[in-house]
């Protein structure tokens, strides 16, 4: 084998490998796609991905013939190109359709990668020649070296010299220009016609085009027209090189979208300066485009992160409003909603961790759906508790009304949660909700690594205390919330409690429903009072630490309706305070939820957690 043959063989191997690489990537991405459930479980998508894989595999097989080419295998190369272009069309076409059909973000990213690899392949294919632009060059070896020097289109454009497409139908003019540019270390691609120019622009995406005006078939003006109407091509600057020395022609070209105009014979220094300026301008535009793409990406990110806490509508409004993204700390009036599952700690001790998580998922899933419906911001899930804000990051006239309606809707939705729980063999749950309205500090709270939008302040703590006064199924609202509501509120008893940080006597309102436009009403508890048959006495201990020091009371049970006991005490009892019922094996808790209007020291005690021995004691007191 002669030296020339050896060099040619090495050249073919290099070309074959550079064509093989993007195909291997396409195949890898199709495999990744088929691993996605969205693709593998949808017959149509799966079939189209498989067609892409088949096309890429067939193309890879076709490339084997490259090794057998010789310098005068123009016909074979032409046929190979023909077949490969057909197959590229398949990859592109099926990918485009997949993009239309698929809304899974990850899948779409893979498909775009496939399209990118296909572009890369096509660019390399169009560049692949056996000599100088498929013409039998006078010195094929020189032509091959020239091709080597030009290199092939590579992935990382950053580290590559700018590529320039020289378009001229006159071979010697084109060669001269190409030669000048190569000396200036540009990567040069040549085209002998307007048509070919457009094809190469599409496939190889050069950084700049030097365009001759007078050409057969399609002249420079026509080429400019096509470029101007093509969004992808418009990005590539075109410098017109003309033999005609007329100002009008120059103006016409600039009008048609050319970025500059040079006269023949081209002066080397001038050429370099003009090319430099056009490339610089393109770099700025590219950077701007990248910046815009980056911006879009960060908006997607914001949507994803905030989407977990906020309704779509609020995320969109945040994105639309430039100031909305500056979520610095600020004082805002909001309505705060706090909810949690009654007796959850006791419940979680009975359940295994897996069941516990299942139960919380049923609960949080249903609640988040309701909260989003009323455009609340889920600030936090803490254990079994949910903290929701109405009025931040965006405030609205009806923040308080939506919070009230949301609370009622959440209580109503607990029925669905319990239906799920029953199906999953989990215990039923009840939830209490506290509402409060007032100023809070809202903003991004946390460290740089982990920050989230949240609210802090006295009013938040107060809401927690109000919430702790509730029993299952109950909603209690602070006076501020009741005052801020413009919707009609169906309220139950007002209960006066002393809350730390709010003074001695705070009248909390029990919310039973909200009027139009929400029109939501809680189903009232069944009043089915059954009088006790045997005397039953309970020893209650006021829970220490919350409001007052622990104190004990002895009370008589007079009647029962479900979880509620009517009791008589010898002395006044504080309202809505947790008490423990002493003397049972498992700790039992209750709350004083109402005071009888007529009789002094007669109260309703609602059980918040109970035990089997308490239940059997009650049973014996009521059923003979």
């Amino acid at each position, binding site marked *: 084998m002669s030296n020339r043959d050896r060099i040619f063989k090495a050249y073919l191997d290099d070309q074959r490998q550079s064509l093989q690489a993007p195909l291997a990537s396409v195949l890898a991405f199709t495999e990744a796609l088929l691993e996605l459930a969205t693709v593998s479980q949808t017959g149509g998508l799966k079939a189209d991905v498989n067609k892409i894989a088949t096309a890429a595999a067939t193309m890879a097989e076709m490339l084997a013939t490259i090794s057998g080419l010789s310098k005068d295998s123009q016909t074979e190369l032409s046929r190979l*190109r023909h077949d490969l272009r*057909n197959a590229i*069309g398949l990859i592109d*076409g099926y990918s485009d359709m997949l993009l239309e059909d698929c809304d899974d973000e990850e899948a779409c990213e893979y498909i775009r990668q496939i399209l990118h690899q296909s572009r890369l392949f096509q660019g390399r294919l169009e560049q692949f020649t056996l000599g100088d632009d498929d013409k039998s060059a006078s010195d094929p070896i020189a032509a091959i070296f020239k091709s080597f020097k030009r290199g092939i289109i590579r992935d990382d454009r950053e580290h590559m010299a700018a590529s320039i497409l020289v378009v001229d139908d006159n071979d010697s003019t084109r060669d001269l220009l190409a030669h000048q540019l190569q000396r200036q270390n540009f990567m040069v691609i040549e085209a*002998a016609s307007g048509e*070919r120019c457009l094809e190469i622009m*599409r496939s190889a995406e050069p950084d700049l085009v030097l365009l001759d005006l007078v050409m057969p078939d399609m002249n420079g003006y026509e080429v400019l027209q096509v470029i101007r109407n093509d969004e992808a091509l418009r990005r590539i600057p075109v410098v017109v090189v003309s033999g005609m020395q007329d100002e009008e022609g120059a103006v016409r070209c600039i009008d048609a979208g050319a970025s500059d105009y040079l006269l023949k014979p081209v002066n080397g220094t001038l050429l370099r300066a003009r090319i430099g300026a056009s490339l610089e301008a393109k770099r700025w535009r590219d950077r701007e485009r990248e910046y815009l793409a980056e911006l879009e990406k960060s908006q997607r990110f914001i949507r994803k992160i905030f989407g977990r806490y906020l309704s779509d509508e609020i995320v969109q409004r945040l994105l639309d409003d430039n100031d909305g993204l500056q979520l610095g700390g600020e004082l805002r009036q909001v309505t705060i909603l706090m909810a949690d599952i009654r007796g959850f700690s006791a419940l979680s001790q009975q359940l295994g961790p897996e069941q516990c998580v299942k139960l919380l998922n049923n609960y949080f899933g249903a609640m988040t759906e309701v909260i989003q419906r009323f455009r609340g911001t889920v600030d936090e899930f803490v254990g079994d508790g949910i903290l929701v804000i109405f009025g931040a990051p965006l405030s609205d006239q009806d923040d308080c009304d939506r919070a009230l309606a949301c609370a009622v809707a959440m209580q109503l939705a607990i029925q669905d949660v319990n239906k799920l729980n029953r199906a999953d063999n989990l215990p039923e749950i009840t939830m209490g909700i506290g509402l409060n309205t007032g100023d809070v500090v809202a903003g991004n709270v946390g460290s740089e690594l982990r920050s989230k939008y949240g609210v802090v302040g006295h009013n938040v703590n107060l809401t927690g205390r109000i919430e702790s006064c509730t029993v299952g199924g109950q909603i209690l609202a602070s006076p501020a919330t009741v005052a801020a509501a413009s919707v009609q509120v169906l309220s139950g008893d007002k209960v006066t409690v002393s809350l730390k940080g709010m003074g001695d006597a705070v009248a909390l309102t029990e919310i039973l429903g909200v009027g139009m436009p929400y029109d939501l009403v809680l189903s009232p508890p069944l009043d089915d009072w059954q009088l006790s048959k045997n005397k039953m006495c309970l020893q209650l201990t006021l829970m220490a630490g919350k409001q007052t020091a622990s104190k004990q009371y002895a009370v008589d049970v007079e009647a029962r309706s479900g979880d509620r006991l009517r009791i008589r005490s010898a002395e006044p009892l504080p309202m809505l305070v947790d008490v423990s019922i002493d003397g049972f094996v498992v700790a039992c808790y209750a709350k004083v939820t109402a005071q009888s209007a007529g009789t002094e020291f007669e109260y309703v005690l609602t059980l918040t957690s109970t035990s089997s021995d308490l239940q059997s004691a009650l049973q014996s007191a009521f059923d003979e």
Partner: protein
Amino acid sequence: MPTILLVEDNEMNRDMLSRRLIRKGYEVLLAVDGQQGIDMCEQAKPDLMLLDMSLPVKDGWQVAREMKASAVLQTIPIIALTAHAMADDRQRALLAGCDDYDTKPVDLPRLLGKIEHLLGAAQ
């Protein structure tokens, strides 16, 4: 909606291109070789023919020449499709009687532009 006859021997290409055209709202008829293409033109009178130039039985060049020689069929606009991107392909296709020409891989927006242009001119 206008009817397009796609004459293409490659099965995958036929499947892909016809589906893409149907998505754009066109009615699509299919023929797998040149002779079938001409026969279907006579029967179904499509509004436009998309003609792959390298076909078995009767190639695209021959099909275009016969279509334009027929008084009945010559009004049907033809767009030649070829994966050969030689400079004189366009010239040859136009000489053979094609009304327009496009290269493979097909750039769909560009092809649709040509289709709409020809359908608009035919009306």
